[in-house]
């Protein structure tokens, strides 16, 4: 069972990106399950994803990287036993540290984890405005990112996109691949699983 963590700030478009990732992730008949972790005691995105008839497990009212860590492991074990997915996509809260998530599933007895990858989704329109405010969680996310997706690229001019990229590289010392995507249309997303070896 491979794990894909789709991290990123609140409002970056993580759920939209996940919806667009489902088709390429499911290629060749692979089974995909989703763990949806939301801030707040009610699930909103889980209901949205559920409309597609997907295997969804919601963990609300805490964070899978800390307070709901045990809940996440139990959920992964249950998914493994009941669904046996090839890939589990984890959407954590906007300020979760993906490293904690990956560390917490590493070597857990009864859980067979293959490849683990992290995608970080950035909101093109708001990144420059919010990067200082969210510097710490963003830094945590960038440090573990296998790929950074700049989402909503249609909302800002190309020169501003370059500024966003420059800032990702300079402020967060990110050296990996950056891809421009649109979560609403799926542009740029279909090749992402291959890019990161999933």
């Amino acid at each position, binding site marked *: 069972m491979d794990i894909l963590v789709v991290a990123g700030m609140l409002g970056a478009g993580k759920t939209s990106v996940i919806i667009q990732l489902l088709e390429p992730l499911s290629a060749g008949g692979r089974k995909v399950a989703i763990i949806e972790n939301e*801030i*707040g*005691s*009610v699930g909103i995105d889980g209901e*949205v994803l559920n409309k597609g008839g997907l295997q969804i497990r919601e963990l609300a009212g805490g964070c899978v990287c800390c*307070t709901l860590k045990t809940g996440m492991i139990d959920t992964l074990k249950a998914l493994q036993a009941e669904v046996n997915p090839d890939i589990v996509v984890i959407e954590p809260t906007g300020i979760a540290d993906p490293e904690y998530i990956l560390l917490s599933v590493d070597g857990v007895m009864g859980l067979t984890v293959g490849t683990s990858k992290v995608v970080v989704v950035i909101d093109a329109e708001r990144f420059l405005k919010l990067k200082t405010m969210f510097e710490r969680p963003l830094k945590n996310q960038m440090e573990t990112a296998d790929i950074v997706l700049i989402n909503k690229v249609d909302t800002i001019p190309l020169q501003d996109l370059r500024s966003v990229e420059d800032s990702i590289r300079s402020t967060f010392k990110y050296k990996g691949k950056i891809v421009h995507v649109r979560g609403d249309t799926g542009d740029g997303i279909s090749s992402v699983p291959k890019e990161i070896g999933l």
Partner: protein
Amino acid sequence: MTRDEPFIPTVLVMELSGDLEGRPPEEAVSMFSAAVSETALGCAGAGGTIGHIKANMRSSEEMVSASSTTEDGNVRLRFSLESPVRGYTIVLNAIVYRIEYRDMKSIAEKAFSGFRAETSVWHKEGICNDPKCSDPDCQRHHGKTVRSD
């Protein structure tokens, strides 16, 4: 991490239910979208930075989902309602930075007042003060250390 860190938001959850007495679905969706937009605009107007304002409205077996993630009140809808709306439920999850809960609640109450809900439930979600915890919602451990490693 402390509550004063800028990336710790205020989280409001609202659940409404009532009867729109057979209102046309387009009109109900429009009302719903406008209420979400007004909530986002109101929070932004009060100096808040929007994390997200998301809401689902269910009627019969149908659902429309609305999301606003910017300060301009732009709302994106997913799915829709196709049948006249009688009994409905709305769940709103609003996450906004740099705003007081009471201001958020007041803004959302006004924005959704057109729904004249028969029942409404409001939650303020707590945050965690664990210095290693990067999540704002640890309601059960409000004000306590939740991890000691």
